[in-house]
């Protein structure tokens, strides 16, 4: 059996200009989209709380939302996951702790009523309230006061006497949102009719840290692979491989952008895998170009490249095809981020194959032409439009 019966003779290089033009356009559109609309960041990067619940009886997302709101949980998004009869839902809350502006204001008034209290400061992003009292207060009293004002308290810390000895500093740490989900949904029930299957909570600082680390990882791996390619092949192959890599990463990022699927750590893993995989196809073709350059000495580079691409076309399609085939199971049975991962990989494999042919190789020709023009000689591939060999 053979996928391409005869040797193909497509003029890939001749069509490189429209291909690069369209690719550049799509890439720019995606970058603009990321800058203006932005990704749908998951809790990994945005910080926040996600709770997955499974009810033991049929219930709709709207009902779950209503129950949550009745229990005092506002700003919560409820989403059905899996098949409808599974009754599983994802609840997403932006806030990390129970301390929001409204609660903080109430808690502040309550604390100030405790007596000679000054400098009440609520740090919403970290879910803490700091204050100073001229007289010693008991931890129990503070906890009760804040809790009665509507904010769950995880801990009250005594920070000690301040420097001038004019008061004692206290810190109130608010409870997390996941806590509240359980109590809000459970309100008025004898025993819960749901099971808490998963909780993801990421603090705001950690989220920022994770995002920076993810971006750095992407850059590092691109640079490392570029160095390897430049070292193993000629230097002029490097930029082509890099641009093809960038193209693929942006395209896959585009998948997350357009589909509005959650952009999280798994997405970064998918992008990094694409970086490693994208260069695979490119290398197969580069290897062949190098081999054919020795074989067809004297032929213009563009022509040699076209021969190489045509010769390897069958295997380019096959290798992409087998990898895509292995992903089918994940696409059928994967839920949530694993489905997204498989889908992103599929997109990456497709654009990776395309970019190896239409981005990486033409750029090599272009660089060769530039070098030739600089040296004042006729570029190998510049003057004659390539004819299919």
């Amino acid at each position, binding site marked *: *059996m053979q*996928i391409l019966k005869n040797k193909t003779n497509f003029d890939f290089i001749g069509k490189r200009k429209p291909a690069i033009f369209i690719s550049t356009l799509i890439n720019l559109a995606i970058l603009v989209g990321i800058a203006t609309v932005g990704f749908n960041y998951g809790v990994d990067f945005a910080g926040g709380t996600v709770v997955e619940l*499974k009810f033991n009886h049929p219930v709709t997302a709207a009902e779950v939302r209503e129950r949550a709101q009745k229990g005092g949980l506002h700003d919560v998004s409820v989403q059905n996951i899996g098949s409808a009869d599974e009754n599983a839902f994802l609840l997403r809350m932006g806030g990390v702790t129970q301390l929001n502006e409204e609660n903080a204001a109430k808690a502040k008034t309550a604390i100030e009523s405790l007596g000679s209290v000054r400098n009440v400061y609520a740090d919403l992003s*970290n879910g803490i309230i700091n204050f100073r009292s001229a007289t010693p207060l008991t931890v129990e009293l503070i906890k009760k006061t804040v809790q009665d004002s509507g904010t769950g308290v*995880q*801990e009250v*810390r005594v920070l000690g006497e301040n*420097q001038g000895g004019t008061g004692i500093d206290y*810190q109130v*740490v608010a409870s*997390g949102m*996941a*806590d509240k989900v359980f109590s809000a949904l459970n309100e008025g029930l004898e025993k819960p009719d749901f*099971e*808490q*299957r*998963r*909780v*993801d*909570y*990421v*603090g705001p*600082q*950690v989220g920022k840290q994770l995002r920076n680390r*993810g971006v*750095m*990882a992407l850059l*590092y*791996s691109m640079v490392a*692979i570029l160095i*390897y*390619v430049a070292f193993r092949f000629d230097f002029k192959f490097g930029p082509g491989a890099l641009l093809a890599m960038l193209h693929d990463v942006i395209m896959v990022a585009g998948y997350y952008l357009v589909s509005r699927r959650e952009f999280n*750590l798994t997405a970064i*893993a998918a992008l990094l*895998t694409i970086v*490693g*995989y994208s260069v*695979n196809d490119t*290398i*197969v073709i580069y290897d062949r170009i190098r*081999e054919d350059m020795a074989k067809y000495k004297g032929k213009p580079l563009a022509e040699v490249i076209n021969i190489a691409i045509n010769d390897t076309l*069958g*295997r380019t399609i*096959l*290798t992409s095809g*087998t*990898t895509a*085939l*292995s*992903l*089918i*199971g*994940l696409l*059928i*049975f994967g*839920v949530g981020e*694993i489905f997204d*991962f*498989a889908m992103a*990989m599929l997109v990456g494999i497709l654009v990776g194959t395309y970019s190896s042919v239409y981005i990486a190789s033409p750029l090599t020709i272009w660089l060769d032409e530039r070098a030739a023009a600089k040296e004042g000689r006729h570029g190998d591939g510049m003057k004659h439009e390539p004819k299919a060999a």
Partner: protein
Amino acid sequence: MDRGWWWKFGLIVAVTLGTIWFLIPSYYSLAVMDRAQRNDLAALQARLPAWAPPAKYRLNLGLDLQGGIHMVMRVDTKTALQKRTERRGQQIATYVADKKLGEVTVDTDPEKLQLTLTAKDPATMDAIEKDVLATFGDFKRVNRNGATLVLSPDDTQVNRFREESVDQAMLVIRRRIDKWGVAEVDVRKLGTDSIQISLPGRSNPEQAKELVGTTAQLEFRMVDDTNPQVFAQMFQANPPPAGSDITVTEEGGFPQLQSKSREALLAYTEGKVPENRQVVTECIANPLKKNECSSYRTFLLDKFVPLTGESLAGADASVNQMNEPEVNIAFDPAGAREFEKLTEAGVGKRMAIVLDDNVQTAPNINEKIGGGRARITMGRMGARSHDEWLGEAQTLALVLKAGALPAPVTVGEIRQVGASLGDELIKKGGLAVLVGLGLVLLFMGLYYRKAGLIADIALVLNGLLILAGLAFFNATLTLPGIAGFVLTLGVAVDANVLINERIREELSHGKTAKAAVDQGYDRAFWTIFDAHVTALIAGFILFFTGTGPIRGFATTLIVGLLASLFTSIVVTRVIMTYFVHGRNAQSVSV
């Protein structure tokens, strides 16, 4: 077949058998054992046949697949540093006043971590500067302008303090988790200021957060020794229920109750002591396992807490002239006054140092102690080695510091997965692997016929090698890891596609089967090698930057790529060679 071929063939057979042998503990752990015992290494070891590899080489399931809690705690070293700088500032002011060098006011800049000393009389500043810099070696001069002197802590001191803060927080967290009896916990440092905690099988994240997230509570409380026989009498008048292991032990004239279970002791004594007294236990460390308690002993303490760790300024372990380890503690001025009052009233009594409801030590008060400095000698050496004895003093100092310098610990990340969800994910992941693998195997067999079947054999071996590799490195299999597994198999088969395509091409050039196979492998080798190396680069970077499940993905990818180099190049070539050389075939089924 030449000798070289037989060697390679022998190697492949050995690797295959070894791989299968190595997966025995994993098979037992996942398929034979009860799921409740999944993490119990001792039980697994007992169940394994004698000839199997040790139980520790079993495939671990990540928390996302077996259920549990993963937490990252951030130690707020910045706040701790600010507090410390402020406290040192006060100490400097007191020191200057005590030594009658002059009178200074000290201001702290919390952002820059700087102290500004201003002398009332500018003339005294030269002497003050000299003396203070010599005495407080952990500070260096930033600048001096007449009557004002700006100091900042030494960088190496700051770094050491940061490290210590994280170590202290880790110690406190470990002890707390031990107190709760959570088995198979993993507490480790993450980066410079974070601590990662894995609690397999736990399901309540809020409880876990409270467990590790609250600040350590260090208390100094008086031991009620008015009736030294209180526990012995309680035991006689009211014997514990049958089956209880509570016994009376005596040390230094104070009988205590002892049991393996802290809960049993507290339940037994409940309601048997006066309102204003409380029974608190001491942990008797297991001599074999440092972080575990082999048993507990009771103390009767005043409920009233006169002094807490907030008043403690520092603690250090040292050795005295008698070569006995001791712990030196220092209180801040307010604490020093309170401590003096306490010791004055309590001469001859014992004072308990309690951390998180655990009595750490209960030294005797020999005399009234003023000046806010006290020494705790470390009891008798007993059966301990001198190093262990000193080690205990160091641990106590660390514990005291943990209470003294509560670098606030905040929750950075919590990820909890319920056990039922984990089971479902394993099932779905397994199906995804089977479908993906099945499709690839089928395609290869149909498309390349015999050469495809050879690639299929290599692919299955590759899969087994990945699992064995993960088990060998004690890596964990996570949900993203399963995705990585599938993907790696897809990439591994690419190598065989490249080889087989190349063989077909060589055949079409009219080469003999033997020459085509040799050329096919030789020419495709570097392409495959380059492709694997680039993927490995991405894999390693993902491994070093990722955490938790993502790290599991990277590990699977790396192990898989390494295995694939072996299976898709060496294994398939040896089998291929058998068919074209061994049978002297003129054609090859590609």
